[in-house]
């Protein structure tokens, strides 16, 4: 494959582009001007739909299709919520975009708002991204001064206000209805669906929730066209009728035991092995990889033997991981105890479960208690079966919870046990290695 020229990350490392002059000098907002003058909202929606762009937030739902779910001819207001509550551990693609190139995201926000006829957009950013929040607020202020936001943008009839809303640091606020509840000032308990946000979302009005990276892609789809976008990435798998293809560039976050952790923009479909070896600089300290989390904690764990899967929306599923997720790859080396990995993952989900649905609230806590006990060396053989059973029965897929957090909590547990069972079984016999400190900061 020829060397890929980054598009989304083009301006990273060029601090002069963070301001509006620099961004405009680099060709920014030209697409917006052209689209507002030449295209209707439907044309924008159709172009995004035709491009096959799928949401970059984790679920991979086709973006254009989501936009068409809005009620036709709604008198408004319609809201756009930008989900920058990037709380999936090891994920930082939006952070880079928002901190280093906020105008690119903002242009995407304006384009998307134009397409869905939203007059208000909320930029929901997690509490920890203080710098990102200030960068975004600065970009918004500049855009207001330049007439790119506010009433009658660029002399058209289209008006848009963008507000930055800072979250209060909770994983569940990244769930789209949890985000909406939080935005409304309530406890971020995800809503029951239907109604879906496109029908009844923020403040009981039609609402579209999109990821910043998705919106950044919208800019380039409008700039370069559908054919350019479809020339990148992987077409649908003919053997899988439900696969809508994985087109376009994707930001991959690489973290964990690699020599060169960081973020890299590649066409969809790069293999996990290539990502680790070529872009991550290989496993650190000359060790071998034991396994990886292919796309954020909730996607499950895969062993080194399965590293040849392509990282597109379809690939991780072929080895029974949950999916691509946020494409945040975490590598752990062969010196790492899988029990430690699982314990850390369980701690996260037990801490972040919002506590609304019984299976998730109690299930995540129970799994943590069991894994903690195994880690102390007091595990029983049946614990592994209990873990697998509990992990299997929580989540939106078996139908037992409202949102997908529980699926994400269950998947690492069941994949870890299914794929690393011998290691767990030997750990049950031997207990922790001598001299290993087991104490970890308690979640509560």
């Amino acid at each position: 494959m020829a060397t890929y020229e980054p598009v989304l990350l083009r301006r990273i490392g060029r601090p002069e582009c963070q301001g509006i002059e620099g961004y405009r000098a680099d060709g920014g907002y030209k697409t917006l001007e052209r689209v507002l003058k030449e295209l209707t909202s439907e044309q924008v929606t159709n172009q995004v739909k035709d491009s096959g762009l799928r949401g970059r937030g984790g679920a991979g739902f086709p973006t254009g299709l989501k936009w068409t779910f809005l009620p036709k001819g709604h008198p408004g207001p319609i809201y756009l919520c930008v989900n920058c509550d990037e709380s999936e551990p090891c994920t930082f693609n939006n952070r880079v975009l928002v901190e280093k190139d906020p105008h690119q995201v903002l242009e995407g926000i304006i384009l998307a708002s134009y397409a869905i006829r939203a007059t208000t957009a909320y930029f929901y950013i997690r509490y920890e991204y203080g710098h990102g929040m200030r960068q975004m607020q600065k970009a918004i202020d500049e855009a207001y001064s330049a007439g790119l936001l506010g009433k009658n943008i660029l002399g058209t009839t289209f008006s848009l206000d963008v507000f930055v809303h800072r979250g209060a640091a909770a994983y569940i606020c990244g769930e789209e209805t949890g985000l909406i509840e939080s935005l409304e000032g309530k406890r971020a308990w995800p809503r029951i669906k239907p109604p879906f946000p496109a029908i009844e979302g923020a403040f009981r009005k039609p609402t579209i929730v999109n990821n910043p990276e998705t919106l950044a892609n919208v800019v380039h789809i409008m700039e370069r066209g559908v054919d350019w976008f479809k020339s990148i990435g992987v077409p649908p798998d003919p053997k899988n009728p439900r696969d809508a293809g994985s087109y376009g560039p994707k930001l991959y976050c690489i973290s964990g035991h690699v020599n060169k952790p960081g973020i890299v923009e590649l066409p969809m479909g790069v293999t996990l092995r290539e990502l680790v070896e070529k872009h991550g600089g290989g496993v650190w300290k000359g060790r071998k990889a034991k396994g990886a989390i292919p796309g954020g904690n909730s996607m499950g764990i895969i062993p080194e033997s399965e590293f040849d899967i392509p990282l597109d929306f379809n690939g991780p599923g072929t080895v029974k991981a949950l999916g691509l997720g946020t494409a945040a790859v975490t590598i752990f080396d062969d010196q790492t105890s899988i029990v430690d990995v699982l314990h850390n993952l369980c701690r996260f989900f037990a801490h972040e479960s919002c506590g609304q649905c019984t299976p998730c609230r109690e299930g995540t806590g129970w799994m943590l208690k069991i894994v903690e006990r195994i880690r102390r060396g007091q595990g029983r053989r049946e614990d592994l079966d209990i873990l697998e059973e509990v992990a299997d029965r929580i989540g939106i897929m078996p139908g037992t919870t409202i949102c997908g957090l529980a699926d994400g909590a269950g998947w690492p547990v069941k994949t870890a046990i299914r794929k690393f069972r011998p290691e767990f079984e030997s750990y049950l016999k031997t207990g922790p290695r001598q001299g290993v400190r087991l104490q970890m900061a308690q979640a509560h």
Partner: protein
Amino acid sequence: MATVLVNDISVDIGDEKLNCVQAAQRAGVTIPHYCWHPALSVVASCRMCLVMVGEKKTDGSIAMQPKVVPGCQTPVKDGTVIQTMDPRATTAQKATLENLLLNHPLDCPVCDKAGECLLQDYSFKFGNASSRMVDEKNTPPNKPDIGPNVSLFTDRCIMCSRCVRFTREVAGTAELHVVQRGNHSEIDVFPGHPLDNKLATNVVDLCPVGALASKDFLYKQRVWNLKTVNSVCTGCSTGCSIHLDTNKDVVYRLRPRFNPRAQGHFMCDEGRLGYQQVNSSQRFRKPLERRESGTKPIEWSAAVASVDRAFREVAGVDAGNAWFVLSPFLTLEEAWLLASYARSVSPFVRIVSGPVTRVGDDDTYPKDRKGRPAANVKFTIRAEKCPNRRGVEAIVSHFQKTVVSFNDLLQACDAGSARFVYVTGGYSSAHPGFRVEDADKLAKAPHLVVHDLMPSALTDRANLVIPSAAFSEKEGTYVNHAGLAQSTVAGCVPLRGMRTDGQVFLDLLGRKGLVRAEEIRKEIGKTVSALAALAQGSTGEFGVFTGSGS
């Protein structure tokens, strides 16, 4: 006409908008549920009502959805198929119960809810016999002073959030919140803002487990020892339908009983605690006659004879100087019997209805953020603190064609023309019916007979006091503010040696036998046109509407 198939039982739901839980109820199938309550919003979070749902196509084939869905959140329509016995549904229900019991202390032997606890019931019916949890349970501290009337046993909570939604949606005061996350979630209040509103104790009834307990009832009784009868709250003219719980003829608690015609699902705290007067040690137990040397208990038969003699003496001279006051706390049957007695002696006896106690204005709920009443009223505590004004007025106006009021009686007493006055009471001591100056005026009558429950300014001045039975000790009918007649059943026998009011009136009338409210109701229904709806005798579970009064 919509037909729903629940476990192969076909049930017709008409054109009502129901969810799976309700539709199954119609078919006689229990879908277990915790968080869903008909009066509250749907959150579908307890995940107890998971069932398999599908649709029957026109060609007769059934297409089931591939996974379990919460029944409370799933509306039914014509052709909906509900399967509660599908292995996937039963497994999910078992799993939910196992989850709920993970951190539950299982302290049933000391829990107030034991015996009427849905966690017990569902675990027995749908759950496992043992737990696989071997790890330590979470033990959050209890919050015994979450409100003046309510105590929270935090560790028993299953986070159904019914109580939180109640304070937000019905009371509108929003004191309760969920704090923390995951399995550390707890119900709590903000510091300095306890669960203190006039509807607060309803959260105890709503709580499906023993987390929220009524301080009034806490550790008093095991619920399986309680006898429950259907009754009516006599605290105000809303006339809430209630369950009256007694043991060995002592009233232990009142609980709201669902009645769409009266108040809905709830009741106020004042009404709920209003039973305490029944158990008061100050209640009269024997008729008391005032003599120069002081009051002296006399026999019931002597008291009845004394009243009858005094009344006939006055009526023989000028019946217009004999007055009967029918309290709005009397049941319809009692009012009817007493008025009949008065009329049986002379048609000129004056019958008036007693004073109506009112406190402020009607108090409606929910409140808004600032404590002002909000638009869509869900519950009303009425200003009129009497249960049966409309009913008694209907009886009075049936007998007394020319209207005389209680004030006319006061004037007559003041002027010295009233010779014989028979006053019925029953007012609660929180809202007394007679002011001291009124009592002074009434005391000017040479014969003042007071029929009441507790000592008051009026009984202190009476020549003869006849004890009343409490509402829990007698059967009868009350007509509420909207004209809804509801009959009650006696929950306990009167105190030892006591006679109910109706029995006294029967004795006065010289009629034999015990009071049989239903027979008297039929009699009233046939005679009093405004109360014709009572001619059936029974008023059913929810009562019947009468056109009486205004």
